[in-house]
């Protein structure tokens, strides 16, 4: 092992990322470092750029300036600061290193639960069908769906679908897992089972960036909370600081106040 005198480089290093959709500035010079094993939740009013930031991290969206590095590697652009987009295959290979779970699950409806997980394992990781199947079964067991391996997504409840979505992402052994409002499309009684899975992953040391409206979860499960407003990082820190009622950040205070009023 190398000596630990140097600062451990961040696993995810977002630097000064800005992005505009036409005339609307959705990200304003966002910077964020996430270390290995950290769980960072991103909160903020809708339209604050949370989801866009997440989508930039695996380059589902491009960005206008700044840089995003995972494990030291520039995500969407070629090294050297030329801002030349990576080639299609190169991008695909980069994306395989980040897992993403979507608000609307986005399971492949023509494939079974196991098939959804196996697709990336066979096509991208080059595993044999048998090997992929056993990995899929392992992860389905982890998310409590070992008995649903051969069910089609349409035969599963929302909570079950989202757990398959999580299993599909983590089975690829990504360096970092991105969770985009993964419980927002669920009936309230199904939220718990999904968050339970995420909590288990956090305990296993999975590095995660999670956009969420589940404040209790953000408070209990994350190492740091990022509060975004108007496309910028407005506050960042440990949960107890960010969620403290007496913060002097005006935007954050009013967000939390409105949030408490509507959710409790």
């Amino acid at each position, binding site marked *: 092992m190398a000596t630990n005198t140097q600062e451990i480089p961040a696993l995810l290093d977002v630097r000064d990322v800005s992005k505009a959709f036409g005339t609307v500035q959705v990200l304003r010079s966002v910077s964020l470092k996430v270390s290995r094993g950290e769980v960072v939740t991103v909160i903020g009013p809708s339209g604050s750029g949370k989801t866009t930031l997440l989508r930039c991290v*695996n380059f*589902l969206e491009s960005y206008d300036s700044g840089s995003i590095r995972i494990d030291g590697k520039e995500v969407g652009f070629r090294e050297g600061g030329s801002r030349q987009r990576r080639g*299609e*295959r190169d991008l*695909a*290979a*980069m*994306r*395989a*290193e*980040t*897992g*993403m779970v*979507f608000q*609307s699950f*986005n*399971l*492949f*409806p*023509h494939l079974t639960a196991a098939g959804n997980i196996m*697709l*990336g394992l066979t*096509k*991208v990781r080059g595993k044999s069908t048998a090997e992929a199947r056993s990995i899929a079964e392992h992860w389905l067991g982890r998310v409590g769906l070992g008995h649903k391996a051969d069910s*089609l997504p*349409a035969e599963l409840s929302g909570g079950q679908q989202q757990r398959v979505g999580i299993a*599909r*992402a983590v089975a*690829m052994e990504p360096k970092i897992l991105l969770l985009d409002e993964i419980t927002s499309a669920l009936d309230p009684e199904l939220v718990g089972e999904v968050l339970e899975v995420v909590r288990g992953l956090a305990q296993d040391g999975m590095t995660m960036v999670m956009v969420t409206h589940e404040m209790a979860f953000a408070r209990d499960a994350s190492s740091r909370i990022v509060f975004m407003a108007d496309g910028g990082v407005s506050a960042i820190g440990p949960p107890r600081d960010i969620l403290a009622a007496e913060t002097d950040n005006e935007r954050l205070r009013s967000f939390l106040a409105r949030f408490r009023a509507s959710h409790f």
Partner: protein
Amino acid sequence: MLGQIIYALPFLAEGFALTLWVSFLVVLFSLMAGVILGVGLVYGPVPLRWAVRIFSDTIRGIPILVLIFFVYYGLPAIGLHLPSFWAAVTALTLFKTAQVVEYLRGAVGSIPRGQTEAAMAIGLTFRQQLTSVIFPQAFRRFLPPWINGVTDAVKGSALVSLLGITDLMQAINQVIGRTYEAMPLYILGALIYFAVNYTLSLASRRLERRFTFIRE
């Protein structure tokens, strides 16, 4: 009447085979070209999209008969002499290709954007996204209009008789020319075309049922 039909059958066999051959070639070529151009229309860079759009709209705006005459009688003016058979196949293929482009665009366009994103997120390349995620789902929507188009191709192939090619239609006309019994022969022709197309429709319905399990 039955006697006349039985008398005619051997003369029609060769024409019928040619009708099937023309239809087959047209369906095959138009499927290949249409899928490629359709993918270009949906995913390609803007100039390519425009080119395909213009091609498709132009072709679909021209009567198929005009297209056949244009390829056979028109193209020699620019030095392109196609034998009547290939001129007919080319014209029909152009016509069908423009339709396949639209079926493909519709079918692929009906797949939610999230499917592509999920496929990208697990690291699939563009080609893998299409073959493993988009096409298997789009197939169910592509199939019904496409089979309809195949039956159109079989019916449309009767137009090649106008270039003097002895397909089923032309063979029927030749027999009528000898026997002067139009009615039984045209009824026979109609029955043969119907039998082919009805078989295709049945096959299509079967296939569709096999793919109805895909729900969103």
